[in-house]
């Protein structure tokens, strides 16, 4: 039987994209936790992703694939059941566009929110607001980016938006409110309530605690320097 392994780190949203995709398709896999991933790099991680040395890494029959959005496409092609992308090439292009937007903007913001201080942090907050405006205006017409069912764009964007919501709590900024972003607010509620997501996401308090500590350490280091 083909062997599927996922190397991930529990506080990182990018690994969950891969886990959700595999579970959605009913693919059995072994999950390997990259312990203390910010400070240590396991041999498996370095071997499987020598270029970026990051997680998640996906290993199928001993062959590694890195970069979560690349992994998602690989999973979609290898296990076509319960598709995460539409059949129509134009609809697929739309889904990929939103995934790319997520990578370009949301992922950058993800790191900025936690790491940036002072002016840079304010800039990140403004960019977060801009991104939400784009998603609200142009992205959401149905229940999910994928339509009535969850799709690849939802997994990609949803992972980062869920985490950014937690960061909002930590830095004391509340953006995704029903009154200002009604469609986005509804989408993220739909997303979080899907059993696939709800049953496969770390405990919120655990995440808040982890990132709060991270943030405090970064802010303290910035003040000290």
């Amino acid at each position, binding site marked *: 039987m083909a062997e599927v392994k996922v190397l991930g780190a529990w506080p990182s949203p990018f690994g969950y994209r891969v886990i959700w995709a595999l579970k959605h398709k009913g693919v059995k896999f072994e999950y390997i936790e990259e312990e203390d991933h910010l400070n240590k790099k396991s041999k498996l991680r370095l071997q499987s992703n020598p*270029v970026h040395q990051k997680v998640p890494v996906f290993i199928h029959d001993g062959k590694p694939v890195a970069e979560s959005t690349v992994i998602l496409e690989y999973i979609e092609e290898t296990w076509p059941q319960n598709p995460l992308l539409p059949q129509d090439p134009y609809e697929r292009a739309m889904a990929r566009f939103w995934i790319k937007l997520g990578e370009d903007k949301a992922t950058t913001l993800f790191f900025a929110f936690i790491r940036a201080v002072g002016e840079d942090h304010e800039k990140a907050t403004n960019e977060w607001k801009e991104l939400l405006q784009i998603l609200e205006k142009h992205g959401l017409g149905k229940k999910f980016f994928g339509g009535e069912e969850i799709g690849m764009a939802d997994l990609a964007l949803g992972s980062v938006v869920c985490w950014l919501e937690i960061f909002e709590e930590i830095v004391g900024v509340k953006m995704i409110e029903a009154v200002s972003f009604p469609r986005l607010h509804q989408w993220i509620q739909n997303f979080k309530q899907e059993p696939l997501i709800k049953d496969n996401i770390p405990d919120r308090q655990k995440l808040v605690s982890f990132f709060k500590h991270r943030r405090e350490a970064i802010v303290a280091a910035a003040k000290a320097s």
Partner: protein
Amino acid sequence: MAHEEVKLFGMWSSPFVRIVEVALKIKGVQYEYIEEDLQNKSSLLLKYNPVYKKVPVLLHNGKPIAESLVIVEYIDETWKDNPILPQDSFERAQARFWAKLIDDKCMPSLWRVFRSKDNEQEKATEEALENLKILENELTDKRFFGGETIGLVDIAAKITVYWVQVAQEVAGVGIISSQNFPVLFKWIDDLLSCNVLKETMPPKDKLAAFFRTHSKASK
């Protein structure tokens, strides 16, 4: 074949537009090219790419697609002759990985070198060289990255190197030479022997003049 309307909104000096053009040409797709003045964007461009307001934008039967790599995947799926991405899923994943590296890391870091002020340029150069080294190490003596014919990574890498060669001369900063990046450098020779690429690239002197004017304007 049924009548299909294909339009490409572009700007002659954009490497990303050229990537899409090469893809269309490899597939033998008839298209209308519309040159955009980025200082004065057309209402059509703003309508078709409201999110980024950038080129390239492909319009197929009235439906717009933005983002060069997204467009190339669409082209590959819609016109099946002369595939640009490999057939095998694992090979496709490798192609996407490297195309993404070029798009996310190589291109932006190279641009930072040419745009950065003196005191930042050293650091920017270091980063750009690191990224190019990654690419250089992955390339082999094979003529094409993926196999026997030109593919996505070849297109993206070769166009990037072409642009860098012009930009570095204008900026007076040596990034890619036959000494430090022999494989990438050799690829440029191969590029010029590939007709599709050769006829799509803007002439180097025209591009150089553009960079000179552009960098003066931004100072």
